[in-house]
């Protein structure tokens, strides 16, 4: 079944094509347009489900091996090698030599491995060995899809959460004149995103990357008649260009270093490169830096986060799908996909961890003071993305992806819930005009409650498992020396998260119904009014529950947000190891994650965070990722040096490994509870407190309220400087260059005046005299020739032709004629 994954991106594309090309004709029926869009996504989701099942769990499962569609022989050469051969010139030859040696070395190592090790560490690299000979010579990029643990999780999230959001959008966008346009863009987005996560090489990822960027631009600017939406879309596009520039440089680096863009080949080669500890900038560090800049742009990390909050100008389902659940996690996908490269560079791991932690805290503090419900959620998204980067930075890539998944569930849920609230409040987004909605929108409230508990990190809800694991990984990391700082920052950010989410709940669903008293100073809605909301009684805005097409997806996502975390249940609860075999997301993702200690792929369980080998082993024959070998010595930390390790220190106090983790779990639960309690105190118990504290911490409050003036700073540092530079260039142009040109023109004029004088009086005089004479003589002749009659002119042409013939054959022809007439007369 997994051989049919090529259908998955094609279906949304087909849906988008139908809606986009024929949408204007189909406008009479929203049902039809929505049906095409939802149907294509639903079909893609079903195929994804079946493919992933047969890939990883069915009887013919090939997990942990990688499946690339070109394996079946049906490969489509997208950029064929021959075409590049001309441009590559001589350098291709030297590159071949380098690869030749690398491949020989790898072959030698393969020969030394035991069969089991070969399966475990070598699968990815030897998979395509049969045709490596041709491939290695020149850059040859194929269009093929790759199915492995990482892409299957992303495919499931993208199509599954996407399906919920599509269903929701059919309700939310009801009555919008651009209904078909919306679904065409959304379908195109799904296609691009699936190409991004399913592509088997960097260039395909780049195509998807730019595709989702384009769709994001189109959808943010969906209400293009509103200037703030148009500006936000441009801002998103331009900010992403910065990141994409880094990504493009990284791809060039990959091509120059490895001579190929195919993941399996690149990572197989990269695994043999030497590690680059902190402060060493080898080629892989530079590549990783470029990739990270790209990831920063797409995943809204500091300092390129500025576009994401503004992107909320798009319709709410867009915010849920693109700017919370899927597109912004593309950076995470890229980081995890290229974890071999990142893990070679301790410097870049540290940078990722620090940037992630900084973003998490930074965005969380801004989220506290925002009043627009979607802005709060946007900053929350930035903050959660920071958490994910934090996880990747401390080496827990699988946990980062786990958080991507749970975050997709609960953040999509909250965005859709917010959309439902906005819809029910007749396009009101300001939380200060909400309150007490619990009574009016029970389904929305209940589902939102699940999302709230999940993001705060309360125990059985999904957010708890992933966020707790991230903090635990940060505390116990052996990858970067700053793990404990990251942990502290992350814990504070988690507290803030619980606080502002409680604030959002309180201001929206609990307390006084403020929309009742503020009817008259009601500002025009932030979203344009749908056609069916143009009520004549504009002042009576009693909220109403949304239609089933909106709350049913909410309910589905609420269930997922509640129980979705159990696929990655914390080892502290299950005896210190990840149970459930490959049903556990950490084990499932194992084969794609490289281990710098053992230098193998997929050996997460062989060495735990402390360098000890766990007792647990899974004795299933095909899951050879886990080893049955007995535990011997503690391996050293991957990069040779390990800084202060918080978890290690705690363990030396409590003396039990599982207890250490329990301590950290309790801490994270406590801070979540603290945040929630503070929120409850501030916004339910004593509603006067926020103002008091805002006055007391005025500078801090102002900084947070104004988003730390980052936009203003960019405006000053980038926009203004660009304008200054442009002005300077213009001044140079107008003063220096134009001056030179004008000066030379003046000189020329002077010279020409002198020449003109001579010309007029001496030369012209002579010429005129002669001309007058000739004219008198010749003009009657020439005037007669100029009949103005076209065919006369053509006749002259033919005369020329005759003359040409006579010139060549005239003498011969006359003799021939003479001879002929002489014969017959």
């Amino acid at each position: 079944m997994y051989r049919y994954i090529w259908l998955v991106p094609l279906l949304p594309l087909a849906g988008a094509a139908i809606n986009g090309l024929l949408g204007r004709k189909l406008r009479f029926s929203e049902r039809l347009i929505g049906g095409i869009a939802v149907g294509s996504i639903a079909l893609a989701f079903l195929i994804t489900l079946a493919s992933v099942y047969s890939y990883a769990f069915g009887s013919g499962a090939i997990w942990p091996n990688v499946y690339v569609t070109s394996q079946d022989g049906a490969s489509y050469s997208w950029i064929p090698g021959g075409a590049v051969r001309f441009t590559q010139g001589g350098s291709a030859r030297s590159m071949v030599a380098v690869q030749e040696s690398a491949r020989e070395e790898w072959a030698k190592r393969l020969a030394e491995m035991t069969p089991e090790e070969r399966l475990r560490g070598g699968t990815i690299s030897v998979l395509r060995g049969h045709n490596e000979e041709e491939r290695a010579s020149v850059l040859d990029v194929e269009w093929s899809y790759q199915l492995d643990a990482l892409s299957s999780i992303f495919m499931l999230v993208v199509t599954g959460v996407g399906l919920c959001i599509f269903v929701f959008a059919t309700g939310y966008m009801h009555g919008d004149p651009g209904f078909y346009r919306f679904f065409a863009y959304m379908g195109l987005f799904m296609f691009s995103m699936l190409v991004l996560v399913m592509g088997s090489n960097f260039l395909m990822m780049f195509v998807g990357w730019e595709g989702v960027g384009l769709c994001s631009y189109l959808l943010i600017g969906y209400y293009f008649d509103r200037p703030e939406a148009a500006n936000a879309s441009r801002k998103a596009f331009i900010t992403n260009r910065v990141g994409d520039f880094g990504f493009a440089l990284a791809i060039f680096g990959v091509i120059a270093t490895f001579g190929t863009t195919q993941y399996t080949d690149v990572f197989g080669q990269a695994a043999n490169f030497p590690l680059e500890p902190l402060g060493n900038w080898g080629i892989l560090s530079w590549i990783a830096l470029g990739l990270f800049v790209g990831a920063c742009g797409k995943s809204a990390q500091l300092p390129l986060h500025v576009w994401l909050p503004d992107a909320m100008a798009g319709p709410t389902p867009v915010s849920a799908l693109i700017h919370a659940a899927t597109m912004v996690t593309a950076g995470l996908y890229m980081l995890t996909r290229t974890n071999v490269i990142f893990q070679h560079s301790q410097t870049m791991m540290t940078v990722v961890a620090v940037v992630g932690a900084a973003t998490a805290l930074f965005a969380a503090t801004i989220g506290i003071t925002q009043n627009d419900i979607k802005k709060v959620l946007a900053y929350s998204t930035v903050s959660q993305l920071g958490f994910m980067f934090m996880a990747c930075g401390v080496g827990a890539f699988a946990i980062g992806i786990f958080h991507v998944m749970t975050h997709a569930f609960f953040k999509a849920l909250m965005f859709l819930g917010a959309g439902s609230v906005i819809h029910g409040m007749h396009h009101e987004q300001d939380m200060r005009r909400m309150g007490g909605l619990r009574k009016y929108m029970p389904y929305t409230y209940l589902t939102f409650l699940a999302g709230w508990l999940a993001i705060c990190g309360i125990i059985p809800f999904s957010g708890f498992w992933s966020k707790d694991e991230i903090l635990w990984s940060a505390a116990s990391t052996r990858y970067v020396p700053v793990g404990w700082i990251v942990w502290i920052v992350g814990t504070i950010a988690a507290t803030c998260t619980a606080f502002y989410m409680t604030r959002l709940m309180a201001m929206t669903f609990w307390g006084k119904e403020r929309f009742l008293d503020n009817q008259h100073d009601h500002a025009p809605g932030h979203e344009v009014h749908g056609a069916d909301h143009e009520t004549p009684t504009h002042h009576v805005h009693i909220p109403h529950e949304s239609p089933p097409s909106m709350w049913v997806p909410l309910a589905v996502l609420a269930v997922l947000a509640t129980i979705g975390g159990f696929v990655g249940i914390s080892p502290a609860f299950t005896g210190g190891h990840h149970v459930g075999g490959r049903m556990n997301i950490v084990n499932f993702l194992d084969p794609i994650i490289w281990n710098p200690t053992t230098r193998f792929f997929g050996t997460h369980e062989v060495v735990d965070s402390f360098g000890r080998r766990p007792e647990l082993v899974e004795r299933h024959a095909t899951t050879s990722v886990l080893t049955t070998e007995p535990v011997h010595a503690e391996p050293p930390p991957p990069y040779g040096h390990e800084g202060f390790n918080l978890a290690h220190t705690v363990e030396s106090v409590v003396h039990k490994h599982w207890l250490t983790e329990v301590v950290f779990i309790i801490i994270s639960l406590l801070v979540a509870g603290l945040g929630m309690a503070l929120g409850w105190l501030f916004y339910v118990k004593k509603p006067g407190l926020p103002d008091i504290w805002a006055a007391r911490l005025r500078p801090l409050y102002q900084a947070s309220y104004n988003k730390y003036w980052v936009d203003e700073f960019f405006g000053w540092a980038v926009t203004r400087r660009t304008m200054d530079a442009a002005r300077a260039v213009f001044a140079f142009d107008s003063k220096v260059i134009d001056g030179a040109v004008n000066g030379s023109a003046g000189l020329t004029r002077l010279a020409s005046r002198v020449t003109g004088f001579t010309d007029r009086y001496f030369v012209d005089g002579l010429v005129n005299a002669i001309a007058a004479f000739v004219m008198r003589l010749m003009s009657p002749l020439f005037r007669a020739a100029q009949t103005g009659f076209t065919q006369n002119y053509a006749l002259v042409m033919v005369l020329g032709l005759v003359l040409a013939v006579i010139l060549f054959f005239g003498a011969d022809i006359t003799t021939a004629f003479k001879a002929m007439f002489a014969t017959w007369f």
Partner: protein
Amino acid sequence: MVLSGWEAVFFWVFSIAAIFAGLLTVMARNTIHSALFLISSLVSVAALFILLHAEFIAGVQILVYVGGVMVLFLFVIMLVNVGEEERGQEEIFNRSRQVTTSVIFCGLLVAGLIYALNVGYEGIQKRDAATIAQTGAERRAADQNLAASATGASKITKGTEWVGNGLYRFGSLPFEVASVLLLVAIIGSVMLARTLKQEAAVDDVAPDVLEKEAIKDPELAEVPATE
């Protein structure tokens, strides 16, 4: 390339037809008749192309000329006024001085060209006789290997394939330029053939001209400046 048997018969039939049809094209009084004679001349030439083993060009000739260009001619004839000519009230030829000179020149040209071709061809024939004899045998041998057509009466030749190969391998740039030329021709003819009213509708007429014309045709003044 010496034809023989039925091919020779067809050659004479079609070449005489082409020349007579061409003559009638030039001499017919009725323009429609001219066009129809031109069509028969073109079709005859297409038949000559087939005798020369240029099947593709023959097809293009019929499709493009007869199917496209000549239809265009017929439409234009319908658009312009040719009534006087048909009724025999107008002289179809130019003033006699021009006609006489032209006919004399053309006669000279015919005589010269035919003589030159006859003389020149003998020289070429002498030069190439050996080569033709040699390669002709090779070609006949190669033609034996061609696949037979469905009826079995003839062989499927490679001529069209060569043309396609040559066109796309060596002539691709001119090919693209030709497409641009056609595009320009389309746009140009559309722009040329617009009426003043159509031009006024897209605000493409100088205002003073429009004013002047509007006096004659009051409808023009009512055309909205932009659509």
